[in-house]
């Protein structure tokens, strides 16, 4: 592993671009191809690449396993709670986005952003948690 100089330097060169590309895909998903699902997978892929080249322990220092496994339900919870404000304030039904702003398009843009953030958290942490589970198993 220590001898893979080109692989290590190449990974270090590529990684920042992958990590910037993921939020770009996430936030630009309203205007071009992309969204929470794709961005989540890209983040997970970046950390998996790091884990493959630099070792699992290094990756776990960047993205601690305990944190990742707590984020898995947090994303679903964020998504599910995005529907509550409309329901509790009697201004609409579950997952109506009208309450997030005064102007229709503005409110719905916020709603979509919150929901997509829930998706990106769930997808990226689930993919990473699955990878960690398989990688841990191989070391035992």
């Amino acid at each position: 592993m220590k001898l893979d100089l080109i692989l290590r330097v190449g990974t270090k060169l590529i990684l920042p671009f992958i990590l910037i590309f993921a939020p770009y895909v996430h936030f630009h998903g309203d205007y071009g191809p992309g969204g929470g699902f794709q961005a989540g997978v890209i983040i997970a892929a970046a950390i998996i690449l790091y884990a493959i080249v630099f070792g699992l322990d290094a990756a776990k220092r960047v993205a601690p396993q305990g944190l990742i496994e707590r984020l898995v339900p947090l994303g679903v919870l964020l998504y599910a709670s995005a529907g509550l404000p409309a329901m509790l304030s009697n201004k609409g039904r579950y997952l109506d986005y009208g309450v997030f702003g005064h102007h229709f398009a503005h409110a719905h843009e916020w709603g979509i952003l919150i929901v997509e953030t829930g998706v990106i958290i769930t997808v990226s942490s689930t993919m990473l948690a699955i990878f960690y589970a398989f990688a841990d198993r191989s070391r035992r």
Partner: protein
Amino acid sequence: MIEWQAIVGHYNYYVTVFLMVAGLYIVIAHGNMIKSLIGLGLFQTSVYLLYISPGKIVGGTAPIIDPKYTDYSNPLPHVLILTAIVVGVATLALGLALVVRISEEYGTVDEDEIVAMDQDQ
């Protein structure tokens, strides 16, 4: 008289059916569980094609609204399949996790060998 027009127009359906049948064949014929899961994946991917290809309009564009275009391909199958792909990999991982546990328990991932071991006991 062969209607070439109809055959060319339906070529995507023929390939879809072929992929589906190939996936089915792998699932039935191969005893190795990892290969069977890959066969299931092939089957699943053919369904993506089955959903997406009727939504395409020749001369249309991707469903991103722009004043310059009027014809867009159908966005609904895209949404359904987009989520199905991510769910597909999550369920594939679940299946593979089961295979790993089976392999640890039995020392093999071949269905026939596992059935034989169970009958010996």
